């Protein structure tokens, strides 16, 4: 029935999770200096062994539960053998990914809570004091009450729909169809074995990187030129922010009128002035740059706004002192201004990345409709095409989950990379 028995998988999860936690607890217990008497005698008498056993049991259970959160609802279908007794290797791979991710998620969460609890009970090290921490016997209750609305809203509008999307991605489902059919990992497998989808992922990254790079660098350049007080500066700065007031859809329509191959204004001008034309939307190697250009123009107003605010807060005395010490304009910019702007740059990198991955689909729809030859079809645009236009909800759910994974990955990388590089002034 199964290529790997679910029981073996769960045993493996228990072994690795339990072993890892046991090691973690034992190491933490070794650093302990104070012992407090507690009703659990085994913890008191042979504290280290007790903690190790406790850690093993807790970690093992957490890993089992984690392994079950994705694979349980699916009934371990990725590991099921087909009628010919064959296993699909892609299915097994997807199953292993779900197994590891689920187990890791729950295990990490439980371990964090457990270590925190043990520290609070003085069984392990001392609890570090943080501002804003609830104290007292009913601290848990008060915290829970205050957090309940947020958790409730997040649960109903974010976590439940996400879980539902995951279940939907394992089905054949169409809007308006009388039934759905469970197909396990088929929607994912179709995507992962499709070379076109691989290209879509690459196109999404290509566009995102260029949009972030161009919009941030050009915005900083323009902001640097206009942030100082000058005559009519406020009007000028307002006009600079103007493009952001247009939705990506409108920007798409405007740029289509400009760049259209046969009826476009821009080509008419270029042709009149220089006697040649550029196939802005026709050539697969040029069209992505057209999208980058339009998106950059659309999002730049937003970045300029933040950079102007940031630049106006850069302490002038620092710059003056540097100037007196002989630093030239470039040195002042790269050694003082740019590092001081790092929180804004970081914020803008995250927001423009989100724009490039998610919001740009409206612009793409009206500018290139994903073409030519799918050269500007991004992951988000495909979710829209497949889910909304073709009403193929199962496949669209699978696509949106892959997109979600990619964007989460990119954001985590951005946070990791920025650690120690972003200074908030304190």
């Amino acid at each position, binding site marked *: 029935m199964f290529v790997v028995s679910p029981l073996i998988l769960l045993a493996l999860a228990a072994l690795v999770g339990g072993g890892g936690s046991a090691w973690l607890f034992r190491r933490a217990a070794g650093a302990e200096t104070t012992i407090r008497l507690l009703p659990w005698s085994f913890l008191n008498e042979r504290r280290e062994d007790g903690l190790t056993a406790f850690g093993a049991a807790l970690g093992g259970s957490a890993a089992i539960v984690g392994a079950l959160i994705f694979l349980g609802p699916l009934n371990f279908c990725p590991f099921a053998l087909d009628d010919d007794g064959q296993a699909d290797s892609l299915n097994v791979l997807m199953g292993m990914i779900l197994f590891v991710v689920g187990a890791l998620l729950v295990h990490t969460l439980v371990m964090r809570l457990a270590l925190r609890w043990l520290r609070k009970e003085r069984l392990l090290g001392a609890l570090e004091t943080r501002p804003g921490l609830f104290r007292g016997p009913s601290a848990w209750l008060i915290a829970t009450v205050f957090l309940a609305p947020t958790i409730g809203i997040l649960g109903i509008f974010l976590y439940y729909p996400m879980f539902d999307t995951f279940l939907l991605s394992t089905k*054949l*489902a*169409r*809007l*308006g*169809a*009388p*039934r*759905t*059919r469970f197909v396990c990992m088929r929607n994912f497998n179709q995507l992962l074995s499709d070379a076109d989808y691989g290209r879509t992922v690459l196109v999404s990254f290509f566009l995102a990187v260029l949009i972030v790079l161009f919009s941030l660098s050009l915005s900083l350049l323009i902001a640097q030129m206009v942030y100082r007080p000058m005559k009519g500066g406020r009007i000028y700065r307002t006009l600079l922010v103007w493009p952001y007031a247009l939705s990506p859809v409108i920007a798409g329509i405007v740029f*289509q009128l400009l760049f*259209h*191959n*046969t*009826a476009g204004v821009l080509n008419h001008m270029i*042709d009149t002035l220089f*006697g040649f*034309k550029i*196939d*802005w*939307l*026709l*050539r*697969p190697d040029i*069209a992505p740059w057209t999208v980058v250009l339009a998106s950059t123009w659309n999002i730049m107003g937003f970045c300029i706004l933040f950079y102007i605010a940031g630049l106006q807060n850069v302490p002038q005395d620092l710059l003056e002192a540097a100037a007196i010490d002989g630093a030239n304009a470039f040195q002042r910019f790269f050694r003082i201004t740019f590092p001081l702007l790092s929180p804004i740059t970081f914020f803008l990198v995250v927001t423009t990345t989100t724009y490039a991955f998610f919001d740009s689909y409206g612009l793409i729809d009206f500018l*290139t*409709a*994903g*073409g*030519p*030859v*799918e050269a500007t079809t991004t992951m988000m645009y495909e979710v829209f*095409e497949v889910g*909304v*236009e*073709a*009403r*193929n909800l199962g496949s669209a759910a699978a696509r949106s989950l892959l997109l979600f994974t990619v964007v989460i990955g990119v954001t985590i990388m951005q946070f990791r990379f920025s650690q120690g590089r972003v200074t908030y002034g304190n």
Partner: protein
Amino acid sequence: MRSKFLFVCGLLLTTMVLAVPVAAQDCTAESPCVLDALIGFTDHRLEWAKDRAVEFGEMFPQFEVVIHEFSDYEPLLDSYILAQEQGDPPAIMQLFEVGTQFAIDSGYFKPASEIIGDRTEVMGQAVDFDDIIPVVSSYYTIGGQWSSVAWNTSTPILYANQNILDMVGIEELPETWQGVEEACAQLQPLVDDGTITGCIVWPNHGWFYEQWLAQQNTELVNNGNGRDARPTQVLLSSEASINIVQWHQDMYQAGYYAYSGVQRDWPGTVQAFNAQQLPFIMTSSASAGGIMMNAADNDMEVRTGMMVYDADVGWTGNILGGATMWITDGLGEEIEDAAMAFLLFFSNTENSASWHQTSGYVPVRNSSVALLEEQGWYEANPNFLTASIQLGDSQVTIATQGAIFGTFVETRNIITQAIEDAMLLGGDVAAILAEAEEEANVLLEEYNLLYVDE
């Protein structure tokens, strides 16, 4: 606090008590029953529909037809499905022709013939389906039954800018692919010296491919183009299919077809023609109104001709495009009859003629064509007659009746993509279509899995 609570409870109770008799109430002029109708237009065509709804309300004050507009057919259909799932569907919806299979599969609608029965009129509105032009009636007759009421019907035709053609002395409009190629060769010097940017354009959209397939009397899906039984195969690898895509590739590579690079580029192509960048465009007959208005403003002489065909294979006929009006099942006899009466009024001889004059859509009744002729409309506007001739001359075969299958919308997009690939990337057309066929068949198989009982 307590009194507030009591007040709210009292209010709720009153509402409930009042609501029950309203639901059970008969339709009267004082409190007319509302018939919601969803349509996919937002421009002057919406205003035309709203005017007819008002007129109907004047004739039958016990009913109020409320028209709800949508920017396109797709969001309209989505809204309808969601309304059905929430248990509160509108009475009437406009559904595009490719959604026909979905309409049948969903079980949401009641066929027009079933509502009418053997009556010759509903609430004083004449039925007379024999008056509907054959291509239209054959498309919407499924299993011997009228499924819906015809409204906006169009077909692609050729528009030509005679001012440009005069520069190279072309007097006769091309009727065939070969004729277009000859004309384009004659026009090439104008492209070379920059007077025009290309020879001919049409939106890259599966609709045109379907038309050329029908012209060659070839079916798009198996099982009698989906009319004998639920289709299980999309047939993109047929000789006729390869022929069409090969012509696209040849025309593009010769520099005659001025592709904008944007799929389904309806506005861009018309804009290019209106800006006198190109002498020829093939697009929907529903664009006639806009194109002729622009021509009058800019001193352009525009002529129209039938959609060109492959002379080596010959012409069987064209398929219609557009949408029809469907009535929701389970409305109750009174509302159902009112909805049917409205639609019969909506598409009667006079209204069908006036709709044609407003929009450029083909008049769906023979009597409307006769009326327009009598009024001298076609004499004054000969370009508005081309589409009617094209559809009127079409032979009714399984191919020209048009395909019916559940994944029509997606398959159209797959075909459009295959044509784009063949033009921009080059390569073997048969191989490109074989790949497209495989993709389309997977979707059809998935669709059938969800709709066929095992």
